[in-house]
């Protein structure tokens, strides 16, 4: 005998009053180790119009590939100042940004290490249940053998891989395209 998980409902148009307190755009205060990165992007709807009322949440390991969570039993260092959680609402142009560090590799299910990635939840009016996706990193040789990327048709994988922003050290662009050509891969999680 078991219960049924409570069903999801949309965050609606006014969620920011509830979500603002836990906004976290800068995940890595000074002293946290790892390669400093900035992820910038936009959320676009089926008409290509910016979504000005979305919120992006991210979850990631530290630079050693260790999650700040009791079930991560790996023998790797924890960094008390790095929690791995971020939340950013989009602005009027549908833009969001996070300043963080590139995560290390964590184990997958196929007996191999996953490529560095960030887990992403997307919430907005119009979504009755969150969207789940991932951010991978440009030019990382581990992408070619990544367990989750292999679940995705090859021609759609690039929607999960951020692109370097020319002339800005550490900056990368990663967009959430909700529909149409270039639609971001979303996971059943």
């Amino acid at each position: 005998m078991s219960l049924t998980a409570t069903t999801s409902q949309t965050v609606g148009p006014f969620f920011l009053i509830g979500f603002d307190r836990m906004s976290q755009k800068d995940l890595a205060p000074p002293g946290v180790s790892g390669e400093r990165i900035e992820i910038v992007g936009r959320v676009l709807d089926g008409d290509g119009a910016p979504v000005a009322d979305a919120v992006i949440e991210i979850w990631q390991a530290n630079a050693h590939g260790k999650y700040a969570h009791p079930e991560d039993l790996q023998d790797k260092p924890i960094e008390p100042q790095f929690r791995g959680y971020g939340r950013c609402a989009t602005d009027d142009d549908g833009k969001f940004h996070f300043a963080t560090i590139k995560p290390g590799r964590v184990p997958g299910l196929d007996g191999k290490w996953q490529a560095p990635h960030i887990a992403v939840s997307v919430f907005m009016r119009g979504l009755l249940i969150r969207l789940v996706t991932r951010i991978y990193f440009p030019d990382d040789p581990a992408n070619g053998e990544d367990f989750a990327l292999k679940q995705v048709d090859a021609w759609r994988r690039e929607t999960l891989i951020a692109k370097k922003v020319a002339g800005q050290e550490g900056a990368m662009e990663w967009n959430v395209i909700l529909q149409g050509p270039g639609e971001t891969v979303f996971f059943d999680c």
Partner: protein
Amino acid sequence: MRSSEGQLPAAARLAGYRRPLPGTQPKHLHPPYASSLKRAPSRPLVYLPHTLSEITGPVFGAESVDVKAFDLTKQHSGEPAGERIIVSGRVIDEEGRPIRRTLIEIWQANAAGRYRHKIDQHDAPLDPNFTGVGHTLTDSEGRYRFITIKPGAYPWKNHYNAWRPAHIHFSLFGPAFATRLVTQMYFPGDALLPFDAVFNCTADEKARQGLISIFDWETTIPDRALGYRFDIVLSGREATPMEGHGGTR
């Protein structure tokens, strides 16, 4: 860092979380809810077995919480207008086990059906004594309790003469990325429920009914506030580690 080499740790063999039974969670596209038309993905979701990335998730402890934030009626100098209520319940998993010390965020309209948000232009009064935002941690038994005001219904533009039934938004993290849930709590006997495109987005009747709180004498405070009970169930754990989990080759 040489994390790409060497043996995988035992952590790779942790069990994943259960997937919902058919019909018990909404699909992204629900045409009666007009906003879903341009925002729901058009391609099928790609199945993602749960890895360490999904079975971990942000942990928020006492340091993340204002212990007074459970009481939405005490955030200003005066008492908010409207019907004072107690909303309480438990956060449990699908086996009924308590989810201890997990963060719950809530937000809602005031008694007149108006949110304190710049884009809410409903012609109803703001209440200087009500912000409509609270949070709390569940206790060691998974219990939580909020004191607030019964929110009002309000009109929206989904279709002609559309009104949202009174509701409170709930956001929960649970123990893992995979257990993240945002939902809405409704009130028993609300005449608007049968007509609401959001409430009715979930196919399974029992799952929908689970969003309706239960009037509760036990938590009602005489001469002070009516009690409503709302239990929240988060995804349970797979009984055994999934096939293919871990293993070092």
